[in-house]
């Protein structure tokens, strides 16, 4: 059975592209467009990994990540934060709130997929 990945991004183009690429790479994929629905999707879908955009309407990515980490209700997925904020401080904050990796947009999709695969294989 393929690993499960949730893509959380409010930018449609990126969400679509990521969904397509991840499916092609053999993952099961679910998509959410904002922080609130992301938490629902994650709870239901029980993913192994979440690709989490930082700039989301409502609750932002940092908060979603902190919420995931602070609730012990579901098995903890890996979290890769995606953001257009390139500052070092943002990266530090992302890692501080519990992300496993921090990827700055724009990124090459091949790099992102490699990172996802690495995190998931290290897990198992």
């Amino acid at each position, binding site marked *: 059975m393929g690993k499960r990945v949730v893509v959380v991004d409010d930018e449609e183009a990126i969400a679509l592209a990521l969904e397509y690429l991840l499916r092609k790479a053999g993952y099961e994929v679910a998509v959410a467009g904002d922080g609130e629905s992301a938490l629902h999707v994650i709870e239901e879908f029980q993913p192994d990994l979440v690709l989490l955009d930082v700039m989301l309407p*409502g*609750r*932002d990515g*940092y*908060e979603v990540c*902190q919420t995931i980490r*602070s609730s012990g209700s579901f098995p903890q997925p890996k979290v890769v934060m995606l953001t257009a904020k*390139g*500052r*070092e*401080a*943002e990266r*530090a*904050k992302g890692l*501080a*709130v519990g992300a496993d990796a921090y990827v*700055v947009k*724009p*990124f*090459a999709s091949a790099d992102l997929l490699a990172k996802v695969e690495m995190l998931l294989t290290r897990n198992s």
Partner: protein
Amino acid sequence: MDARLRFWSVWGAVAAIATLPFLLTGGLVWLDLGEEERRFFTTIAGHWLPIGSVLTIAALVAAGVGLERLFRIYVRGLAGLAEQLDVMRTAHAGFRVEERGPPEVRRVAQAANRLAAAREEALAAVEERVAAAQASLATERNRLAALMAELDEAVVVCNREGRVLLYNEAARRLAERSMVTSHAVAASGALGLGRTLFTWVEPAVLGHALDSVTAALAKGERSAQQRFAFVTPSGRVVRARVAPVVELGRGRTHQEVGFVLLMHDATEDLAREAERSQLLFEMTERNRGAVASILMAVEVLTNAEAGSPLVPRLVTAIAREAEGMRARLVQTAAEAERLLAHRWPLEPIALGVLVEITRRFVEERVGVGVRVTQEAIEGEWVAVDLFLWLHVVAALVERLRDDYGVETVTVGATAAGTWAHFDVRWQGGTVSFETVAGWELEAVTVRGARYPFSVREVLERHGGTMWFDRVKARQEAVLRVALPVVAREEQSKGEGETKGEEQEHAYRREEGRPLSFDFDLFAWGSEVGKLEDRPLSELVYTVFDTETTGLRPSEGDEIIQIGAVRIVNGRVRREEAFEQLIDPRRPLSPESIAIHGITPEMLIGQPTAEEVLPAFHRYAQGSVLVAHNAAFDMRFLELKEKRLGIRFDQPVLDTLLLAYFLFPNQESNRLEALADRFGIAMVGRHTALGDALVTAEAFVRMLPLLAERGVVTLRAAREAAQQTYLAKLRY
């Protein structure tokens, strides 16, 4: 020599008094005698004359010796007393004449000493009053000095001729960087009181700026400040501002007496500016081309037929261009962040200090109880703008109090790798993430005062960020601010390198105060007029001393240490001292080691005379050389002149000869004796700088004594020295 003349005339008188009555009586008797009696008398007298003459001469010699003794005791003793009294009066009020010689002279000496004690007491009382009156002025000046010393900007105050009256540590560093040198020693003397600024500030450029200042003043403009930039000999780009120092003249007219230069080494700024321009270029020009290509390709693609061989090629082209844009974006963003960090000067501060200052500020301004965490605060350093930082934390705590009723918070700091976490914690109520995000974006407000910056702006300026978190174990909520940790080397930027070099070569003695000034130099005239005829009190002196491998320069002995200090405006400038050990490239004689205590190991790695003497030459430029027994030191310098292509052709004064001129009746005029006579503390005897300092202090005290003897100009001083030199030779 009139004393000597007097001695001989007294002796002559004694001789006359002793012999004349006999001769006269003899003459009278002779006249009264008859022929027969005369012959008889001649026979007897002829028989006794040799004995009588010998006895008479012996008596006269005895009288002479006795007289000489009396003369030495009374006349020369009193002359010596007079010299000592002059020292006491002019140079060293605490000095006491020697109470020796016959009782009468001793009584005079004792009376003189009692008078001196009374005078010293009276002087002390006057001085106390003067000191009290000057204290407030001194406080003002020290405050100014402290202020300038703290400035990162280089400050130099000059008189109208461009001679330096004041400079701070930053200016000294800038001046040293401005000279073309490979060795730290060689840069010394680039900036000094009374020295001209034009060795490293472009005269034409500064002159033009000064003309503009004068013109602006003449037009009555309120701000006569001018900005300009110049390039130093070493290629540093310096941005400067110049403003006039104006004094209210006699006729209530404003008179320019000098100018203030504020300088800033802009070399790095310019480099960063160039980088920024380059970045902008990368972002615009290069990406413009890439976007154009992509747009074109997409346009063609939309019209292309499916299966056309054009399609994959266009897609490849788009991918290539987009990838190029991505790479450039990532790179420029990183560069931009690095450059941005230099835009605002942040002060390095230890985490522990930051926590304590923050606690006090927040408690005082917000009135919320602030405790400092019990956990150890790590010894890391961060860079902050304290004003912005304190207001941001105060504003956040104020929001916590107003919106959540928080009455006490705990602050603390920990290090996490390259980040320092500054925490504000409180019990109970949590804050929603959205609220915190809102606080970040609002203008910072403390006690109703709104500041024109938001929490996020300030944190971004510090390269930091902030988030809210909960510490479940302690039922605590926490606002955590992450700031980048700075390396401790960065604590005092720029200072480290120069300080290090100084310690290594130990050629400059810091007197604890990094700022030097002498505002009396404002009144200095221009240097026109021959050095020879200028008053001694106005000249600049370089007082120096050397330690050597031995006493015979012509047989190959070499200088191993040179120490010098300048006298400007009649004051010894200890802070501008020159001190350097020199590798003589030959062994030291054991006797010399016993004197100066410099061992061969101390000379390893020291520069050679070829490097040091040109630096000393520049240090001494435009000044009169002064040394104790100058002939000895000058001989060593002269032997090197030809090979090094420099000439120490300035006038030389010898304090030993001047001392002989002033104190011919004292037993010794060695440096120790002079120090004792003038009440100068001897520190570091037989180190070049130590001896140079004593010589300088002694020389300064000789100046008023010389003036009383009519020796006012340099020419007169040289003549006086020459005269004593010849007198010494005759002995």
